[in-house]
């Protein structure tokens, strides 16, 4: 009976979902708004030695140590610049808090299930495993990312896998 509010597992959620739209380079992406805790500017990070280059380091978010991931480096989209306009989306993913650096955040978009088309079998930067589909809104096309799955994936190396 307990359907997750995000409803990603079951794509046919009649009410439609809200997505936060952001850009990486020239591409526009969308993630489930409910995964977003807050949006902040980029601030100085503390580098973690010997970590992959897309992990910028950690910051202090009101007493919590939060790792910061730069999506532009991870997926080689756009030029990683850090200025007062650089945006960090703070995500809350199954109890873990992660910051994600993107080029800019545009708006929150409500998409009905009909507006979400399955992603074609072609090379996108994101492995199609992490895609929910493509959202269409007038002339815009949003690449909808299952951010939960992506962030907890082994690719990101954010979460230590259990010794198995």
């Amino acid at each position: 009976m307990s359907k997750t509010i995000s409803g990603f597992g079951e794509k046919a959620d009649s009410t439609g979902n809200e997505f936060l739209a952001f850009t990486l380079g020239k591409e526009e992406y969308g993630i489930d708004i409910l995964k977003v805790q807050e949006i902040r500017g980029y601030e100085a990070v503390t580098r973690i030695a010997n970590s992959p280059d897309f992990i910028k380091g950690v910051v202090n978010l009101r007493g919590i140590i939060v790792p910061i991931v730069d999506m532009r480096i991870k997926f080689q989209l756009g030029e990683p610049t850090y200025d007062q306009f650089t945006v960090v989306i703070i995500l809350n993913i199954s109890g873990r808090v992660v910051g994600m650096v993107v080029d800019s955040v545009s708006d929150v978009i409500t998409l009905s299930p009909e507006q979400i088309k399955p992603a074609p079998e072609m090379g996108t930067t994101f492995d199609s495993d992490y895609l929910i589909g493509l959202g269409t809104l007038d002339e815009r096309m949003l690449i909808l990312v299952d951010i939960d799955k992506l962030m907890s994936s082994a690719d990101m190396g954010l979460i230590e896998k259990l010794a198995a």
Partner: protein
Amino acid sequence: MTIDMSQFFQVFFDEAEEGLAEMEKLLLAVNVSDPDDEDLNAIFRAAHSIKGGSATFGLTDITEITHVLESLLDRIRQGQMALTSQHVDAFLAAKDILKSMLDGHRHGATVDLEAVADVRMLLQSLSEGAGKKAAASQTPAGSGGMSRYRIELPQLAERELEALQQELGLLGTIEKTEAEEGRCVFILDTTKGADSIHEICSFLVNADDLKISQAVAARSKEEEQGYGFFAPFVPQDATDEERGYGFFAPFVPVNATDKERGYGFFEPFVPQGDVEQAKQAAETAAHGDHDEPPALAVSEHAGEKKAKGEKQPVHESSSIRVGIEKVDQLINLVGELVITQAMIEQRTGTLDPMLHEHLLNSVSQLTRNTRDLQESVMSIRMMPMDYVFSRFPRMVRDLAAKLNKRVEFVTHGAATELDKGLIERIVDPLTHLVRNSIDHGIEIPETRLAAGKTDYGTLSLSAEHQGGNIIIEVTDDGGGLNRERILAKAKQQGMGVSDNLSDSDVWQLIFEPGFSTAEQVTDVSGRGVGMDVVKRNILAMGGAVDIRSSKGFGTTISISLPLTLAILDGMSIRIGHEIYILPLGYVVESLQPATQDVKEISGQGKVIKVRGEYLPLLPLYQIFNIESTFTDPSQGLVVILESDGKKAALFVDDLIGQQQIVVKNLESNYRKVAGISGATILGDGGVALIIDVAALLRSTRQLSDESVFS
């Protein structure tokens, strides 16, 4: 619509476990010959609340056992039965069974149903008064196991008396004597206990109308049992008081449970007994509140107990149960507040004190309040060491019995407080040390007497604060460690030891993996696993272990732990633009090495010579790939670190200072990082990483091996 019961289950399990622990503690401390009413009541209450809880949650198996336990406890607490050590043993067994049943419900652990049934039987037989038969050794003492009983019976038909005489005759030799008022008294010589007589008589006579006394001795016990003796014909030897109480219903026997229940006690007709007493009863009834008839029958003594019992809840409500994550959140928020406050203080420090006097006063007030708040919030996580200590008396008692040793267990400083996280982790190492002390340390009584000591050994557990540390000591007055045997064993195992090692170095050998000097492996200890684990666990908690021992006089194992893992003294160091924290506990000294003291070893690494000792040099800038200001050790600084007997020199650019830091977990949102044990927030709101010194020193040899740090 079902309610999620699991959260309530959790609370019940927690409370039940606490109740059982409390019960065990009280049982171990109870004075069997003269139990304190308050203790008995407390034990009863613990059993009672477990029973209530388990019934609520439908855990009927637990309810059943606790019910039997509770009834038996009730009889004892009412004074109907004297507490014996047999009872205590049975209660402890019941506690164990209940614990295992709780675990069964909670974690699905297997429950030994046979043991459950056994305990149940034991409790039942005890509460029926047949317990003495179960344990033959408990038969009332009489010469050669024979005792003479005086059995007083109420008025019975002649035929019944004869049948009874015959039955009782089977137990031994019986004599019949006629007492006054037509009552009959049997004198029975038998090897059986009074309970058997009770059993036989109970076919014909209500147990409470029966008075069995041991003609030879055991009078006092009889009296204890006998109070509330409401038999119609008070025997000759009963005291006036006994006769006086609640003597209203000659043929309605009243036992203790009836007293509790009480209701329906006031039969409207006054029986033909003593008229004066009947009148007295009526009077009392008139005076008394009719809603509370028990008050009449309950003796003054019992009334007193009741009053005490009512006071109790006040104590119980003095603590609340809070989820640990709420406390952690609170600590986090306060940590944040402290940092914010530090920022404000920094900003206002530059202001003109004359112009901004009021503001500055307010800021200093804020500083004080923040510090107080931080202190009291931190103390929420602190728990008394009693939490740990209280689980040992039972273990000591059982182990000593198993090993045929006599051990007196003493604790000191049970109120000393320690962080909850540490408390939970110290239990296992301490358990091991206590077991070791009893098994290897304390000698058997004969050996002790031969050595001119008391036949019982003393094992003491103590805890005390010493600066920022807590010192926990396990002390026994046993035989002490055997230096020769340890050295011999070490040589046998091929360790490079010399005979002129200092005692403390010799003692440290027992922490080597696989090291055991026990002559024989018992099921308690002696397999040589454990001490190394004990040491490793304590080191992992940021503590240290030390042994003091003197042959023939005993051994003290002393554990020193930081008070909390959440705050530590750190030294901040700088490499390039990056700041790291070194836990101060590992720092020995820092110095600027002279060029000639730095030597290279086959181009692989460097060592530095510090007072005649060559220490490996750990270039932090290389390990962490930092662009450092200096690459030549003689320009920067080295910090000498020591952990687990290993020393190394860490090469850094600069020392910044020493400060208390709040340790934050890096893994809660990220993963484990090699060489880093956590993070902290600096006064400017930035993050600094804490260096995992122990890991760094362990891996000195594999410095070039990239995998260690990737």
